[in-house]
């Protein structure tokens, strides 16, 4: 994963609560066996007027002009603001893949669903929790000023407005570290191989029925 650097980006306002991952990336696109290429189908049902099909070229599809991501003023946006419980529903990691593939690097909301929140960090997408009041304020700012942008500074845990306001946010230190350094979780966990092995032997002694029962049938001779 790339290191997560400080950046400044246009903000797209998605003024809805409970945006679910079925909306972020509808199921017909989950048939892909790749991690990339989901951007054109991000929010497919809201973005286009027709029904999207997997592996279809989206460039000629009729656009829903009202939808935020189709409005000229938000083109090139990399920060999204939304309402509470963003990313609820299915655990599909295709949701953060679609958001990052489209170009988003951060989503700001008053709250996120747990699984989406977790998946985002693993894909270079920073979910930022800010209070309802501040989110309200950001929505107002975005609606008022064309080209409204925010600077996201993960190292210092602040979002900076162009008006010079610095809004602090919380982030889990481990996740922050992994994002900033572009680290792979698996590599970090494998540094604890000895601890895992030690736990495993103890666990097997206490609960032997958990081990050695499931086998691929090709392996059963």
């Amino acid at each position, binding site marked *: 994963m790339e290191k997560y650097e400080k950046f400044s980006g246009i903000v797209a306002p998605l003024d809805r609560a*409970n945006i679910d991952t*079925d909306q972020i990336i509808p199921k017909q696109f989950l048939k892909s066996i790749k991690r990339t290429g989901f951007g054109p189908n991000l929010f497919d049902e809201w973005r286009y007027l027709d029904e999207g099909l997997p592996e279809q070229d989206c460039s000629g599809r009729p656009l829903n002009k009202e939808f935020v991501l189709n409005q000229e003023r938000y083109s090139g946006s990399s920060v999204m603001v939304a309402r509470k419980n963003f990313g609820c529903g*299915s655990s599909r990691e295709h949701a953060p893949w679609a958001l990052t593939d489209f170009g988003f690097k951060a989503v700001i909301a008053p709250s996120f669903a747990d699984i989406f929140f977790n998946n985002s960090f693993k894909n270079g997408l920073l979910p930022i929790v800010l209070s309802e009041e501040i989110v309200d304020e950001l929505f107002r700012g975005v609606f008022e000023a064309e080209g409204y942008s925010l600077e996201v500074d993960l190292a210092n845990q602040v979002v900076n407005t162009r008006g010079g306001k610095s809004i602090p946010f919380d982030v889990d230190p481990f996740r922050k570290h992994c994002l900033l350094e572009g680290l792979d979780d698996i590599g970090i966990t494998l540094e604890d191989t000895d601890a895992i092995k030690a736990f495993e032997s103890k666990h097997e002694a206490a609960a032997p029925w958990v081990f050695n029962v499931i086998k691929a049938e090709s392996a059963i001779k």
Partner: protein
Amino acid sequence: MTGKTLYDKLWEAHLVKQRDDGTALIYIDRHLIHEVTSPQAFEGLRIANRKPWRLDTNIATPDHNVPTTDRSVGIEDPVARIQVQALDDNCDEFGILEYKMNDPRQGVLHVVGPEQGAALPGMTIVCGDSHTATHGAFGALAHGIGTSEVEHVLATQCLIQKKMKNMLIRINGNVGSGVTAKDIVLAIIAKIGTAGGTGYAIEFAGEAIEALSVEGRMTVCNMAIEGGARAGMVAVDDTTVDYFKGRTFAPKGELWDQAVVSWRTFYTDEDAVFDAIVELEGADIIPQVSWGTSPEMVVAIDQTLPDPESETDPVKAEGMRRAYQYMDLKPGMTMGDVVPDRVFIGSCTNSRIEDLRSAAEVAKGRKVDAKVLQALVVPGSGLVKTQAEEEGLDKIFIDAGFEWREPGCSMCLAMNADKLGDGEHCASTSNRNFEGRQGYGGRTHLVSPAMAAAAAVSGRFVDVRELLANN
């Protein structure tokens, strides 16, 4: 020292290492794998040249994409075919047990895991699917994970976790007859909201939960995620232990006795403290139906649909207005005014044998109403299907005008050919009523299997208890 909750005990029994930064390494006992969220994880292993940590922990089956009609000819949809083939190839390459599409044991993973005894009490169980919470029904710590975590579990047998908070949801007293596990969980979500459980592990308890079978408890825990909680669970009791006896991967002989002693420790101590407690009265719960596009938009069958103008939270009111528009319904209507164009009985929430029995009880001797275009019954697994056929349930459904299908996720998320048309309403036993979930422009109403069958034979949503009274 205060006592421990069920969740505390499961957590501690699997804690490999507590790190200074507040995260912990948690050992995973079972990993269930399906075709949609795993291909990128296997690819990741290959790229990094890593091997699975253990093989005897994984079990796979394709369920999301598979057709539910005749499968002897394979999958017609080329994109779906590639994905199912990728699962087959990955399992073969790495040596992972998979019930392939035409295996009689194939089915929806969350039905297959417990049915085989692959998922057992006291275990940590994960799957790249948010409905993994289902397995909490038997005193396990089970939750959904994303694809990066699927890869992480394959490679390390662990997950990096932060301990969640404890929430107790207690149903005082039992529910009346004709009221099912599905009605209980819909009533719970209506009460706590779709984010009510965010950050919590929920334990369901109380007389109404104790009175449920393990299958009913699975229905309740299955939808913990619709209440925002990654994990839902119920303590181990005699019902739990009896359920697992004799299952394929359940321990046998002396090992069984040893396991039962261990499983019986998985309950909440009397003096344990919860961070939040929610109580509902069983007697107040009657059959439920969702009217909107979020699982919290639920009414009891005798209620009128709520008015957004009397909702004080403006964000919520706006969500309701959108839902009314999408669903083409109006405040003040009752669900009895709504005609289900299609009926779907299936999904990991409600496709086990008891679900099919309860729908069949309503369908028996009746006919699917002429206004209903299609009524599908999709058993949760090949074994459920066989059992239902042995009991003659298939005949009851077919005689009544339902279609009797092969196992899979089917119309729950419409990745295969089973889907709603634009604007169609569906009485569905699944778990999500999001916009477009069951097909582009489709309108889902979540109900129990008995309520779905009642809607099918009545041509509108009705209180199933009235039909049952005439049986």
